[in-house]
Every structure is written in C-alpha cells, then in structure tokens.
C-alpha cells in the first residue's frame, strides 16, 4: 500500500468513527452541537454571550465529514476500471 493510500484509508476509518460518534451523541441530546445564550448586562448596558459555539459532537462531525470526503479519494484515487472500459467501448 502506498503512503497516499494508507493516509486515505486512515482518514476514511477515522472519519467513519467520528461521524458515528457525532450522530450518536447528537441523537441522544436531540441536537448536534451547542447553542450560546446572549445575556443583557444591565450594569454595563451591553450584551454578553454565555456558552460555546462548539461541542465535541459538532467538532467530530465537521472533521469526520471532511475526512470522509477526502479519505476515499486518496484511498481509491484511480479512475474506476468500469469507467475506463465504458470510454474504450
């Protein structure tokens, strides 16, 4: 296996694991990721934000999504034989 293919295989497998984790955790919570809460601070007269935009499931899903898009392209990079045969015909 070439280095490029090995990297592709690793990204694909890690990607699947990350997606599975993200979807499972999201399903359990009823939503993926997290929401922030704007709060009005009366003393300062300004809006402050509580909470974080990112959670472990949303990070996993975004990373897993890119890994799964790139991974198989590196792993199976060649043009499929079926396609080459179609063009030759």
């Amino acid at each position: 296996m070439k280095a490029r293919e090995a990297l592709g295989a690793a990204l694909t497998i890690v990607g699947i694991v990350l997606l599975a984790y993200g979807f499972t955790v999201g399903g359990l919570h009823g939503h993926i990721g997290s929401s922030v809460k704007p709060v009005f601070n009366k003393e300062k007269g300004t809006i402050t934000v509580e909470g974080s935009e990112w959670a472990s499931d949303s990070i996993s899903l975004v990373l897993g999504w890119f890994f799964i898009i790139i991974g198989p392209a590196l792993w199976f990079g060649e043009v499929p034989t079926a396609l080459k045969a179609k063009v030759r015909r």
Partner: protein
Amino acid sequence: MSVVMIEIAIIVFIIYGIAYVFYGRELLARRVVKADPNRPTPAIERFDGVDYVPANKYVLYGHHFASIAGAGPIVGPAIAMAYGWFLPLIWVLFGNVFIGAVHDYLSLMASVRYGGVSIATVSEGLMGRKARYIFLIYVYAALILVLAAFLSVAAVIFTNIPSAATIAVIFMPLALLLGLLAYRAGMDIRVASAISLVLIVLGFIYAYKVPFLLGYKSAAITTAIKDYASYLHQVKGLSMEAAEAQAKLAVMKAVWIPTYHWWVVILALYSFIAAGLPVWYLLQPRDYLNAYVLWAFVAIAGVSSLIVFNKPLRLPAYTSFSPKIFAGQPTPFWPAIPLIIACGALSGFHSLVSSGTSSKQLANEMDALLVGYGGMLTEGAVSSLAVILPVSIAYGAPELHGLNVLKLNAIGRFVTGYGYLVGSVAERFGGNFATAFNVFKVFAAIALSMFILTTLDTATRLARFSWQELFDWLEPRSPAAHKVLTNRWVATLIAVLVGAAMAFPTVVIGGKIYGAYRTVWPAFAGVNQLLAALALLTSALWVYAALKIRGGTAWLILVPAFFLWITVTIALAWWMAVVMPHIPPVQVAGSGVLVAISLALDILLIVLFTRGLLRASK
C-alpha cells in the same frame, strides 16, 4: 368565475409536454442541431478522469437540474406574485419554452461541438478573439459573485434552519457510498440506489429531529432582546420601536454573526475540495441522489395539486402592471420581469453550467435533449407547480388564520405555500393539517438548501474552468507559469478565496445583517440576464453561421435572442435610472459600477455579434 388548481396544472403539463416533443425534439434536436448518436462527445474524446467523464443521462440530468436550480426558480416567482399569478405564470411558461430551454440546449450542444469549452470560448470562432476574452472576464466575475452569494445564502440557511445542515452532513457520505458501491464494488445501480435512498429517508427523519447547532439558536435570543430593548427605551429614551430594532441588531451581531462565519468557512473549504475532486467521485453520485430528492419535491407538488384539484386560486390573477418591487419603486412587468424571475424562465448562469460541467459529461448527443431542454422545463415546473400555484391557493386561506403570504419574504412565501399545499392533502385524507404543514415547510427548506449546495460547488468548478480558459494565451509564452496558474487546485483556491472574501464580512443594510457581497447583489440579476442574452445571441449565431440554418427556423431562434437582448438592455437602463437612486448608499457604488460596466460590455458585444452575423450572411 374562480379558477381552480387543476385547470392550471393541466395546462402546465400540456404545454411542457408539447414543447418537449415538438419544439425540443423535432425542431431543435432533429432539424437545427441534427444530434447524432454516433458522433463522439468531448466526454469520450477528451476523457481525463477528472472533468471530462461520461455520465449516465439520468445522472447528468440530475446534476444539470440541481446545479441550474439553485434558489432562482423559487425566489423569483415568489417575488413576482406581486403582479398576481397570471403574468408570472405566462412568463415562466413562454419564457421557459421559447427562450430559456432553447438557450440551455443550444449552449450545451454548441459547447459539445467545440470540444466541451465554455460558451464564451465558443464565441471566438463566431465573433473573434476580442469577444471571447471580454465574455470570459465577464463570466468569471459573474461566477465569483454567484459563488459569494451561494456561500452566504447556504451559511444563512444552515444558521437559521439547523436541520438543513444536518441533512447536508448526512447526504455527502451517502453519495460517496453510492459512487463506491456502483463504480468500485460493481453493485447493480438499482440495488445501490435503493440502499442509498432508504438511508436518505432515514437521514431526513433524523435531520428533522436533530438540528445541527453552531452557537446560534433563534429561541435563545428572545429574552436578551426584550431586556436590552427595555433598557434602551427606559434609560436611553429611544422609542420602543427603535429600541427593539437596535436591541435585535446588537443581539444578532453577538450571536448570529459568529455562527454565520463558521458556516462560511466550512462551506468554503467544502467547495474548494468538492470542486477539485473528479466528477465521478462526488459530483455524479451526489447529483444522481439529488435528482431523486428533487423529483420527490416536484412530484409531491404535482400530485398534491391533482389531489386538491378544486382548491381555488385565491390570489388575484392580476393586481397591477407596476407593483412596488425593486426598492419600493413601481416596477413595470416589461422590461423588468427578467430581473425578477430568472431560473424559472431563463438565466445566464445556465449557459455556464450547460457549456461547463454538463457538456464535459455528456456521453451521447441524444442525451442533450433531456439534460438541456428537459432540465429547463423541469425548472419551469418547479416555479409553476411548487411556487406559483401553492402560493396562489395559500393566499387568504382560512387555515392560515389571516396570514398574508405576500407580506412574507420570498423564501417564507415559498415554504408556506408548499407546506399549505401538502397540509391540505393530509387534511383531505383525514390527517392533521398543522403537522403536515410544519413538516413539509421544513422539507421544502431542506430541498432548497440541497439545490443551493449543489450550485455552490458547481459554480466553483465553473469558475475554475473559466480561469483556465482565460489563461490559455500564456501556455506558448511561459509553459511553467501556465501550469501553475491553471493547476486545478490553484485555480479553485483563487476562486474560493475571492468568493469567501465577499461572503465572510458582514454589512448592515436596512437594519438587517448580510454578507458583504450584498453591496453589489442588486446588480446581479441584470448581470446574469445580460449573460443569458449574450449566450443566446452566441448560440443563435452558431446556428446561423456554423450550422447554416436559414429561413423560418433561424428566425425562431434569432427573434427570441434579440427580444431578450433588447428587454435586458432596457431593463438595466431602467434599473439605473429608477431603482438605483433609491437603494441604500452602501449598495449604490458597487451595484452602479457593475451595471454601468455591464451596459458598456453589452454594447461592445452586440457590435461584435452584428459583425459576425453580417460576415456569416455574405
């Protein structure tokens, strides 16, 4: 006498059926282009495994339709309902059959006969080298604008409708799975499709229940807006209305913009990767699956309109020839209608898809009719059956408790009309109207986001093609520089960076937050439709000069081309004189310059076109 849904739906079906068989197949494919099943297409002759790859005609149809659809066939007709339903419907039907579908089909076939190059490069052989480069620069600028707009619109949709983000994350891996099962594992395409479709249906259910949040959640901002507005009203002495507007803007800046920014970054990275990958890997299987979703979307609207056949069209057939549309100014149906309804009737962007990604994947010339002409008719069906008719029956409907759909924005009109149509069907079968209404409102929004995502990466790929064609002069002078500049990843990166730079910063216009591209966006409708006029003129010239078609058949193509050019040119001049003085100052400079440049190029290219026509007629 009130008109009921079924009467219009039947007329729409009949017109499209007749147009496809007689105008598309008999006239354009057989008599004009003389499509030949034995002539090798660029996908075969120039096969490279990346962009030039033959596709099954239904796969290509799915790609073409999903790419040209974007948000255009939905947003434009929804806005045009201000004229009543009759005039927009007439424009969609006849503009589609005689201009839009002809434009798309001929652009596709002209490109195929010239080796899969863009319609701008086709113009070189007909109007000269100067025309080609002017056209290409114009096309590239338009594509960057499309890229920025779709980056921004997709990011807004994912921020505001988090379920649409969930389905996007689910959909791409499923498309890859389908491609790998069919191409690599050699699985029967029917079995692979069935597996993928079952997973997509499950994905839709999951997405409906599990939204993807990246910070912003609309339900979480109400209290902060209320508290801040009270403070501004009581302590700072602002009127309650002004206090609420200022408080809402401040809260949205604090929580909405960061989420929007994250989505712009993620989507920009996605479009960079997706536009550089081989088409057989992601684009073809994704668009093949997309086609099922889109067909389901149109079929649900079509079948629903047959089931609730006796629903009256409550919206008046005709309201006014000049309702207030652009910047609150009276907007005359002619010449302004092409600036309002684009994709549903005709759109310049389609010529770029036809002569960009579609012409490089066409496996057989006979497939072009379904892809080019049929794809455009399907868009018209989306506009008429999924937008114009549903909005017309939803207007004033008692089930919506006094909601005036014309007071909603374009997307709101569309999702409400679509939800109402399907909700009425559920009610007729004893189901719950409110549940079906809400579920299909979300379904409509998700389907819309899928159109938009496809258009996003297609536009990025097209921008790469234009960039590569733009620098062909460099190859003999400096092969090394040419190789670097036209490298597919470098060319894609340049397009994505420029597009993202126009989508990422935000501006406040009329108290609302938008991507910075909005400062020039009012001009886009004009730029896009001018592109349509130029592409149709180029195609008409190809028919006249290269295919040597004369007489009545030639006039059937030349007359609509001239009509469109005159209409769009006058519409642009009208826009500069009437609308521009009334748009926000931040938009005047950018949009004004863009329209002025467009008009100058418009005149220059018509001169070159006339010269080409005179040369050909000698």
